[in-house]
C-alpha cells in the first residue's frame, strides 16, 4: 500500500517536473541557446540582404584583427574598465564604511545614494550631457569663475572618455554600496567588541576586521562591475552623438558591435565582435573561479 503510494508520487514528480520546467526551458532554448550557436555560425559567414548567409571562413576574424577601429575600440573599453572599476569600488566601499558607523540618518543617506541605481540611464545621460555642455552647461560656467575656460567635456576626443567614466561611476556607486553595506552588516559585532577591548581604533578595525571579512562581497562587486563595464553602452550612446569628433575615441566594444549589426548592416562582422567580447567575459569568469578559492576569505 505504502509502496504503491510512493511510486505514484514518484511518477507525478516526473510528469509535473517536466511540465513545470517546459515553458521556461523552451523559451530559453529558442531565445538564448539557439542564438548562442547562431552567433558562432554567423561569425563565419557574410550575412547579406534578406539575411542570406554565405560562407566566409575566418574572414570576419581576419578583418577584425586588421581593423584599426576595433583595436582602438578595445583600448577605449580597457580604459573605461581601468578607471570606472577602481573608482566605483573605492567610493562604494568608502560610503558603505561611513554608513556602517553609528551616525544618525543612516537610512536616509542609503535611500538617497540608491536613487541613481533605479533611474533610467538614458534619462540620466541626458541631464549629464546638458551639465557638461561646453557652451551652455552649468559646469563650465562655474569653472569659468575659477578661471578654467571652455572645457570641451564631450566633443574633445581626449576628454570625452573621462567625462563618460565620471558619469558611469556616478551611476554605479549607489548600487554597489548597498551590496557592500549588506555585507558589512553581516559581520558579527563580537569581532568589533573584542577588537575595541584590545584598544583598536576605527581605522585599525576597518583594515583589520571589516576589509578582510568583506573580501567575498568585495570580490563579487569587483567581478560584476568588471563584467558590466566591459559591456558599457547606454551612457556613450546617449552622450556622444554619431557626428561627434569624439565618436571613435569614446566607442566601446558593445557600441561598435551595435553599429556594425544595426547601422552598418555587417551582421557577420558584428557576430565576430560579439564572440570577441564573449571570450573576454569568459576569461574574467575563469579568473573569478580560480581566484575565488585563493584569496577570498569565506570563513566567518
Amino acid at each position, binding site marked *: 500500500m505504502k509502496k504503491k503510494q510512493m511510486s505514484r508520487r514518484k511518477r507525478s514528480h516526473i510528469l509535473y517536473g517536466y511540465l*513545470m520546467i517546459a515553458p521556461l526551458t523552451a523559451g530559453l532554448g529558442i531565445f538564448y541557446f539557439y542564438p548562442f550557436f547562431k552567433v558562432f555560425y554567423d561569425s563565419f559567414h557574410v550575412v547579406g540582404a534578406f539575411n542570406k548567409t554565405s560562407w566566409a571562413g575566418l574572414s570576419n576574424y581576419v578583418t577584425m584583427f586588421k581593423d584599426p577601429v576595433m583595436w582602438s575600440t578595445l583600448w577605449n573599453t580597457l580604459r573605461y574598465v581601468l578607471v570606472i572599476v577602481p573608482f566605483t569600488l573605492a567610493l562604494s566601499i568608502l560610503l558603505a564604511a561611513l554608513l556602517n558607523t553609528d551616525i544618525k540618518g543612516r537610512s536616509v543617506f542609503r535611500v538617497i545614494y540608491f536613487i541613481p541605481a533605479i533611474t533610467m540611464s538614458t534619462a540620466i545621460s541626458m541631464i549629464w550631457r546638458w551639465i557638461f555642455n561646453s557652451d551652455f552647461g552649468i559646469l563650465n560656467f562655474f569653472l569659468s569663475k575659477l578661471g578654467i575656460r571652455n572645457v570641451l567635456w564631450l566633443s574633445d576626443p581626449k576628454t570625452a572618455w573621462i567625462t563618460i567614466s565620471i558619469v558611469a561611476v556616478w551611476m554605479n556607486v549607489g548600487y554597489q554600496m548597498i551590496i557592500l553595506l549588506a555585507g558589512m552588516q553581516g559581520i558579527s559585532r563580537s569581532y568589533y567588541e573584542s577588537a575595541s577591548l584590545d584598544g583598536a581604533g576605527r581605522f585599525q578595525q576597518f583594515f583589520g576586521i571589516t576589509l578582510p571579512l568583506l573580501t567575498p562581497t568585495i570580490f563579487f562587486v569587483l567581478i560584476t562591475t568588471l563584467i558590466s563595464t566591459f559591456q558599457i553602452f547606454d551612457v556613450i550612446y546617449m552622450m556622444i552623438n554619431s557626428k561627434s569628433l569624439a565618436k571613435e575615441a569614446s566607442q566601446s566594444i558593445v557600441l561598435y558591435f551595435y553599429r556594425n549589426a544595426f547601422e552598418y548592416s555587417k551582421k557577420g562582422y558584428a557576430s565576430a565582435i560579439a564572440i570577441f567580447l564573449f571570450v573576454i567575459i569568459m576569461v574574467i569568469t575563469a579568473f573569478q573561479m580560480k581566484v575565488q578559492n585563493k584569496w577570498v576569505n569565506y570563513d566567518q
Partner: protein
Amino acid sequence: MNSKAKKRNKGHIIIYIVLFSGVLITLLPFIWMLLTSLKTQSEAIRVPPVIFPAKPVLSNYTDVFRDVPFGRMYLNTIISAVVTVAAQLLLCSMAAYAFAKLEFPGRDIIFMTLLAVLMVPSSFFILPQYLIIQKMRLLNTIPALFIPNLFSAFGTFLLRQFFMSLPSELEDAAALDGCSPFMTYWRIMLPLAKPGLVSLGILTLRFAWNDLMWPLIVNTSREKMTLTAGLAYMQGQYHTNYPEMMAGAMMAIIPLLILFAVFQKQFIEGIALTGIKG
C-alpha cells in the same frame, strides 16, 4: 574619557561632511533636470546661466506629448514592464520549484545547462534574437519589446535558491493529502516564497523599465517605442530643446522613483540579496 568623546565627535563631523557632499553630488543632477524642465528655451541657453527660472513654465511637459507620441511610449513601457515582470515571476518560480523540490531524470543537468546563459553577456544574444523577431513578423509591435525577456535563467536561479531553503515537511504533508505537485507549488510554496518573488520582481522591473538597446533595435516606429528609446529619439531629433527633453526625462524616471519611495525596504533588500547569494 572626555577627550575620547571629543575625538569621536570630530570623527563624526568629518563623516557627515563626506556623506553630505555625496548627497549633493547625487541629487544636484536631478535638481538641475527639474529646474531646466521648468525654463523656457531662451532661458535655458542664456549666458551666463540662470539657476532658477524667473517664471516656472509647465508648457514643456505638455509640449513633449505634442512633439512625440509620449503617451503611447509611456503606455508601451508600462505594458512591456508589467508583462515581463508577471511572466518572469510565473515561469521562473514554476521551473525553480521543480528544480528545487521535484525529482525527475536529468533535473540537475538541465538546470546546470540553463545556468550557462548567465555567463554570456546579454548583448551576445541580441542579433539572432532580433532576426527571430523579424522572422516572426513582430518588428515594430508591442510584443517585440518583451518576448525574449520573459525567460530568465537568473530569476530561476534566484528562486531555486529560495525554494531550497524552505522545509520539505509541508510538501510531504500536502502530498499525503493528495495535492498534485503543481497545487503544492501554487497553494503552499508560492506564498512562502514571497520575499524571493518580491526581489526578483523589483530587479526585473528595474531592468525592464530602463533597458535601452533592445527596444531601440526592434521598434523604430515612434508609436511603438518605449520611453528609453523615445528619449534617445528625442535627443537625436530635438537636440537643442533641452527644457523639453528634461521634462520628458523627468516624467520617464518618476514612476520608479515613486515606487522606490514606497517600497524602499524591498528595493534595497532585493539588491542586497543578490550580493549575498552571489
